[in-house]
């Protein structure tokens, strides 16, 4: 078996604590706790969970946009956690991120052509007419008219803005992209367009994605595997259809039961509430493999 593209092991990141000149130190919050997963070349891993579960922190810690407190991130076998910013620059070409809000990610005073081409300039890859040609090709690739290059962000709709962000993210021909809720802020009729674009880019460029989302029906469509997070821990990870057919962790079960079904004939009776406060995953509980590739956090950890 070939080594995975990305291998994350025992990643930790906490906020708060430390010492203050005045007053008591803020409480320590373990934003992510002992998070491990891997992503193969060209694979899409979905990452779902409630707000505050640590999904975004995981995405940022993987890219070293935020230094993890402990744990390893190996990209093509190379350990990234100990590297300086200068050393990391080479890897930044291969790893990119797309954010939820397509407008605040753009610079309102920069023409979008320059915005998309900026990574090529920063990494000294292209300049002059070659740069213009490459940016035009990127616009084509994401379904935008290259004639729009000299316009400003406010002239575009939400879906077009997200296409601009995607064009910039793929400018350096990365192998891996963290997509942090990339369709949540878009109109419904536009979401399918952007999801299809992700699929096309994956087919054409062989990209791997960490797709952070709370829309489980989209995750089911787009991702080969899904990881479910609860309060900083991965409580279940498995191939997508296995998660949907046989959810084992009670949180995964309540998450799936809560998806509203667009069919009036299949209205659900009462939902049972999942009490997060009573079900905070124990910090030391291990992930147990229940069937090939399907891991669940051991639930009766304290009773065992």
């Amino acid at each position, binding site marked *: 078996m070939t080594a995975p593209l990305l291998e994350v092991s025992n990643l930790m990141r906490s906020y708060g604590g430390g010492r203050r000149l005045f007053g008591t130190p803020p409480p320590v919050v373990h934003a992510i706790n002992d998070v491990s997963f891997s992503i193969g070349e060209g694979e899409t891993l979905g990452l779902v969970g409630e707000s505050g579960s640590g999904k975004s922190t995981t995405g940022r810690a993987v890219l070293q946009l935020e230094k993890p407190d402990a744990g390893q991130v190996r990209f093509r076998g190379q350990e990234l956690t100990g590297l300086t910013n200068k050393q990391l620059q080479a890897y930044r070409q291969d790893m990119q991120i797309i954010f939820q809000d397509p407008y605040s990610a753009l610079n309102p005073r920069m023409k979008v052509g320059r915005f998309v081409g900026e990574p090529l300039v920063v990494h000294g890859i292209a300049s002059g007419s070659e740069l213009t040609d490459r940016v035009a090709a990127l616009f084509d690739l994401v379904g935008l008219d290259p004639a729009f290059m000299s316009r400003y962000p406010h002239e575009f709709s939400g879906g077009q803005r997200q296409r601009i962000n995607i064009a910039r993210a793929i400018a350096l021909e990365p192998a891996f992209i963290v997509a942090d809720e990339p369709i949540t802020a878009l109109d419904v*009729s536009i979401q399918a367009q952007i999801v299809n674009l992700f699929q096309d880019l994956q087919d054409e460029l062989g990209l791997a994605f960490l797709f952070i989302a709370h829309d489980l029906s989209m995750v089911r*469509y787009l991702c080969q595997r899904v990881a479910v997070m609860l309060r900083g821990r991965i409580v279940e990870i498995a191939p997508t*259809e296995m998660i949907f057919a046989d959810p084992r962790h009670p949180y995964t079960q309540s998450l799936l039961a809560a998806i*509203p079904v667009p069919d009036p004939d299949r209205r659900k009776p009462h939902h049972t509430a999942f009490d997060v406060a009573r079900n905070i995953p124990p910090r030391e509980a291990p992930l147990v493999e229940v069937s090939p590739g399907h891991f669940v956090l051991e639930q009766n950890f304290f009773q065992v």
Partner: protein
Amino acid sequence: MAPLLDIRNLTVEFDTPGGTVQAVNDLSYTLEAGETLGIVGESGSGKSVHILALLGLLPQPPARIVSGQALFEGKDLMSLPDRALRDIRGGRIGMVFQDPMSSLNPVLTIGRQLREVLTRHTDLTGVALKRRMVELLDIVGIPHPEARLSQYPFEFSGGMRQRVMIAIGMACNPRLLIADEATTALDVTVQAQILDLVRQLKADFDMTVIWITHDMGVVAELADTIQVMYGGRIMERGPVRPVFRQPRSAYTWGLLKSLPHEGARTQKRLYQIPGAPPNMAALPPGDPFAPRNPFATDRCRREVPPLRDVGSEPGHQVAAWYDLPALLAADKEATP
């Protein structure tokens, strides 16, 4: 019996530097007492603006109410003086908006904000007032309601804050509860509980509900009637079953078709509605959806279609010049 709410020929415009935005165009519909209406639409559909207009919450200028009536319990909200309208808002009509953090005052306790609504619209005082406040938080499923009354909004989670908003919205036993994207910002598990809660409240208090959302799943779970809006107009409207089973508007059809199927890993590509939402300052002359509609005819591009009855179920209406089921059947035959 007269409907609870009867909106007639409502037209709202905004004056902007980029031209006149036609936000709501000759909108008419009725809502029966006890009915739950789910309104679906995306940005620029007029779904929120028309509600703000009839509640007197649109700043004028830039907004301009060009024409229209909104009869609520026989009174025209559009011609009511501000004072009378203030009595209705929060009283006979309760409202819940999308963002619970910006709708609540961060420096006042939850109890203070609940009390404000109750003293304005009811005669409750003293012990009875306190009892009612505790009861309200209890109804919406907030644990330890008595202790929670003296807490501030930041001490509540997002879902709990939205429950507080619902408690405030229904504090005075409204005849009509209007919720605008009330669960959009919430986690799906919390959303499911809120939807359960609204269903329960409907059953217990015979409430009439307008639920504005962009999520077809939420409408299917909650509504009796669905109303699909686009470009400030109603594209389709009717009881949820026939509309979901056999949509008559190409827009409704596109919205439903673009959702991923269940067991979707076998699905190669999602159906996508082409194009982008309309520029409301430069709407096309005919059917606003025509530029994105693969089934559009010349007439669609020229002339606005009126809302007309379709199908066998009473109340199912569509604004379209074309016959969608026939076109889809012909399409199927052409590409087996």
